[in-house]
């Protein structure tokens, strides 16, 4: 009998602990809700590398204090953030401020979890239209940029000198290809970029695609074919290594840093590392000269939909504090971003003359989801990188690959 009682007690304890555990879970999640009522505002960003003691972490805390509330900041991995935000929206537990990669804004807006400026009251005043474009859908603006980064062409002066090439002579595609030929003849390597089958691949291909004046709504145009043929030709002739097919922007940068390459297509975020290795930078040339339109990178401050409308006023104050004036210039300098309005860009330039190429590049930049492409862009981009992969690896010609891509886009968008 005693053992039976012991068993019974054991079972009860086991059952109770499960119930208690479940109750604990729910208590925890409802806890954050009641915190919010006491003046805690939640803030999600894709900068897990910055903790509370970093300049960014302190700035977020300070802006909360200025608005009279406590800001609870969480940094997520950027690839994780879209689905986290969607799930939170589904559960009605969106953060007050969500800082997301700009091409994701249209996806989240489509999902209906973001407020537009008409509701949240954010001002877009002096922000350059080309950067703001990623957040504009059907005339409504769903956030403000923290700044922008983009792509340019880094060059290694030592390699160019050995090959007898002057960086300033590179004005268009033909002069660039001629330079690559000279570099190869001198026994060095030409150019490295990232032609991988992810969004990064599309991001890196777009300067050439747009530089040929091609249009994302017509992937199979002859202009698009010219752009893809350019890359393909470089690989075939050995101006670009075969590894560009699987290069991420990071591995591509490592190749460039090996010192053998004359050119490396890479982003603003490498400018300090480039300075250290003595590399220079020029804007990516368009086919017939001038700076090619480059895609903008960088995040947007967005204000997700809340059950309690009254929260927006305070949230707006926090976002304005973070996204304007000296605060955002400081942040942009830390993040290696270019500010989103020309007056702030001038302020950055005054401090650092070396930024001029980047300011020029950002002025010529376009938002990937801009031109009202919105959520069509992810569909187009996926087919674009697939076509780039096919052509690079030789499994289809540039024209066949792009035709198949456009057909796939049509099929998906009409579905």
């Amino acid at each position: 009998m005693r053992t039976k009682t012991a068993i019974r007690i054991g079972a009860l304890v086991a059952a109770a602990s499960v119930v208690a555990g479940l109750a604990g879970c729910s208590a925890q999640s409802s806890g954050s809700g009641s915190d919010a009522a006491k003046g805690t505002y939640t803030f999600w960003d894709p900068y897990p590398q910055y903790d509370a003691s970093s300049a960014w972490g302190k700035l977020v805390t300070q802006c909360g204090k200025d608005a009279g509330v406590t800001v609870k900041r969480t940094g997520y991995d950027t690839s994780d953030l879209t689905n986290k935000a969607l799930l939170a929206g589904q559960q009605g537990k969106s953060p007050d401020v969500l800082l997301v990669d700009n091409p994701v804004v249209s996806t989240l807006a489509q999902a209906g979890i973001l407020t537009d400026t008409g509701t949240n009251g954010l001002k877009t005043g002096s922000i350059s239209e080309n950067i703001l474009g990623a957040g504009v859908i059907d005339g409504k603006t769903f956030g403000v940029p923290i700044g922008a980064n983009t792509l340019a062409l880094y060059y290694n002066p030592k390699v160019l000198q050995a090959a007898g090439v002057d960086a300033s002579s590179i004005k268009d595609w033909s002069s660039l290809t001629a330079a690559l030929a000279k570099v190869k003849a001198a026994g060095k390597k030409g150019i490295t970029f990232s032609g991988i089958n992810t969004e990064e691949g599309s991001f890196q291909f777009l300067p050439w695609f747009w530089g040929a004046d091609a249009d994302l709504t017509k992937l199979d145009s002859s202009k698009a074919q010219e752009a893809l043929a350019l890359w393909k030709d470089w690989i075939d002739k050995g101006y670009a290594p075969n590894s560009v097919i699987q290069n991420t922007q990071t591995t591509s940068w490592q190749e460039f840093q090996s010192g053998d390459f004359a050119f490396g297509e890479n982003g603003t975020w490498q400018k300090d590392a480039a300075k250290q290795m003595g590399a220079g930078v020029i804007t990516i040339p368009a086919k017939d000269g001038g700076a090619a339109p480059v895609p903008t990178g960088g995040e947007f401050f967005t204000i997700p939909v809340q059950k309690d409308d009254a929260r927006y006023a305070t949230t707006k104050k926090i976002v304005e504090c973070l996204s304007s004036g000296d605060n955002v210039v400081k942040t942009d300098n830390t993040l290696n971003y270019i500010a989103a309005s020309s007056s702030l860009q001038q302020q950055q330039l005054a401090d650092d003359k070396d930024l001029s190429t980047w300011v020029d590049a950002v002025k010529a930049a376009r938002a990937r989801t801009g031109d009202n492409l919105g959520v069509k862009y992810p569909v187009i981009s996926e087919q674009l990188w697939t076509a780039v992969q096919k052509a690079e690896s030789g499994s289809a010609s540039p024209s066949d690959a792009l035709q198949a891509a456009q057909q796939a886009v049509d099929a998906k968008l009409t579905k």
Partner: protein
Amino acid sequence: MTTDTTSLRPSAARPRAEGTPASARARRARAQRRSQLTAWAFLAPVALYLLLFYAYPLYKNIELSLRHYTVTSFVSGNAPFVGLQNFVSVFTSATFAPAIWNTTVFVLVSIVVQFALGLALAVFFHNNFPLSGLLRALFLVPWLLPLLVSASTWSWMMNSDSGIVNAFLEAVGIGQINWLTSPDWSLFAVLIANIWIGIPFNLVIMYSGLQGIPDELYEAASLDGANGWQRFWRITFPLLRPVTAITLLLGFVYTLKVFDIIWIMTKGGPSGSSTTLAIWSYQLGFGSLLPDFSSAATVGNVLIVIALVVGLVYARVQRRLEV
């Protein structure tokens, strides 16, 4: 619930002995009910656990694949029911046939080679020799490394232009092979990495299976004049059959869902040449800026069904072996 189960119990339906005092009967009934409760209390944690962490996610996955979820309806929760339409579009997709082919090749070649090499090594190490313990431990290294590390390392080694594998091939005059960047080689490249990672698992299980075979059988066989080859095919292999079956089944399930290695090495490319069902499912759900949860769940369900069918085949074979 308690009264239900009490009435179901065969003992409750048992005819009672004549003349039992009513109080004793009531006491017995109470005791029975209490032990019923105890049984349920014991079951509750497991049942809850199964429901929460197995049944519910599975149900959600099936639900995702039977409705047309867009990002909008994912949040608002009013996705229309579309029946098997997602399955039809997955089956008719241009990616489907190559993905099935890649999955089949990847799984079958991986399992066969892993198993053959694992078994050969197990037999080899079964003859204890000096340093065999240390050597065996070295063979386990691939298993101990995080997949991220080993896959990245393979990716570096197989780099087209600067990888050590191509450096070697060029040194011996074979020339550059675009392991990860050619559609003809990418599946082969990820297969090599996966086989390397899978050998230790097969080695360990087969080795422990070998230790379960009594030495007397081998002694008797050698007395009868059996040579090494005959000892393997007449004793080792047949007696390892149950261990073999479970190793192959586990290997199948593990290989079917391999994702990390392929994603890190090729991302399923170039142009889909190493895209398996697992990779495809991930690409649909998380690979682009616009998640397509319904299609991703549909491919995921196809994977589950395949694993289930193989599991059932295993159970049937196992039963036949036992009879």
